[in-house]
């Protein structure tokens, strides 16, 4: 499975009310083109999707927050995971789409390939971490694993090793100010 296959499958699994934060580059483009709803597509702030997800989870405790992050983004903001583990918000779900590359900038290698994500994340204090190698996996089995993992209660981290994407998607047509407005409109009126 590729990153885009994972995100396409998430479209079927995620609820309409779930709030998604996607990391800059290809992951945000895929989230824009392949998911429904107005999500928080990051266009810059590499390394910050997890911290933005944490802030969102604290502001919207009744909602499920899903952070979709590339491995390069995740590793750049690695220390923010320890803050997340410390605060432990039960509505935060972090999905690492690990192609072991900075794919967006031309496919340079990241330092991801030798990391044991399970040990690393457990060591930070998050015990609910699952790690799957989807690279040679049959799509149906991969989809099933995703479905099972996403349904888990409480905070979790899902680390997915994926094949490199082959399809290039168009840039996101929305200006960031519009991304903010559309996203905030989703919970307008719900807050006092």
């Amino acid at each position, binding site marked *: 499975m590729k990153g885009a296959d994972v995100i396409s499958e998430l479209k079927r699994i995620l609820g309409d009310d779930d709030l998604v934060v996607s990391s800059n580059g290809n992951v945000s483009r895929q989230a824009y083109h392949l998911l429904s709803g107005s999500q928080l597509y990051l266009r810059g702030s590499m390394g*910050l999707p*997890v911290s933005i997800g944490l802030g969102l989870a604290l502001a919207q405790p009744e909602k499920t927050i899903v952070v979709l992050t590339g491995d390069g983004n995740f590793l750049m903001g690695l220390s923010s995971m320890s803050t997340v583990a410390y605060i432990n918000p039960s509505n935060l779900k972090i999905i690492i789409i690990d192609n072991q590359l900075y794919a967006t900038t031309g496919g340079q290698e990241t330092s991801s390939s030798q990391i044991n994500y399970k040990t690393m994340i457990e060591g930070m204090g998050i015990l609910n971490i699952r790690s799957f190698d989807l690279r040679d996996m049959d799509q149906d089995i991969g989809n099933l694993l995703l479905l099972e993992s996403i349904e888990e209660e409480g905070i979790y981290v899902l680390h997915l090793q994926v094949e490199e994407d082959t399809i290039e998607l168009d840039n996101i047509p929305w200006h960031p100010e519009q991304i903010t407005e559309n996203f905030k409109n989703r919970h307008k009126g719900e807050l006092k």
Partner: protein
Amino acid sequence: MIFIAIVECNLLGETVLMINTIEILDYLKSKGFTLSTGVPCSYFKNVINSLEKDDTLQYIPATREDEAIGIASGYFFGGKQSFLLMQNSGLATIGDALTSLAQLYKVPLLIFVSYRGLEPDADFPEHLIMGDVTENVLKAYHLPYWILEEENWQNILELSINKMNEISLPVCLLVKQGVLSL
């Protein structure tokens, strides 16, 4: 409500004016702030001590200042308002978070920045160069800023919060030694 700056003695026994941290936190709460985050500076020792004891205004200890901008921005995207505390050294860390997230996505943030590297820091060379360039950095970032003072602090805060809301962008308050902690 009447606001006063309390008079305290420093280690040398000199009396100094200082903003009461409980009063400033109450003021921020009255303005709708419900969360805080940042990385400590000794200038914020009293404020963070009070925040850690406060049940109504949570403080999230960030590992980096750019992470704090991420947390505070996420909180705003969720419809709520937080403020930040950081040393001016952190101004060097937040560049991308500020320009490609908070400013680009129009996120209002109130950032308290300790102003290190002035006269009291003569023996702290680690602060001197950043102290020298701090206001130029804020100007280069196009960050509106005010210097927080013991007298009239509520007016300065009101001005900065109004500006923050009016432009829906981050604004800064520079905090010198002794204003919020000895």
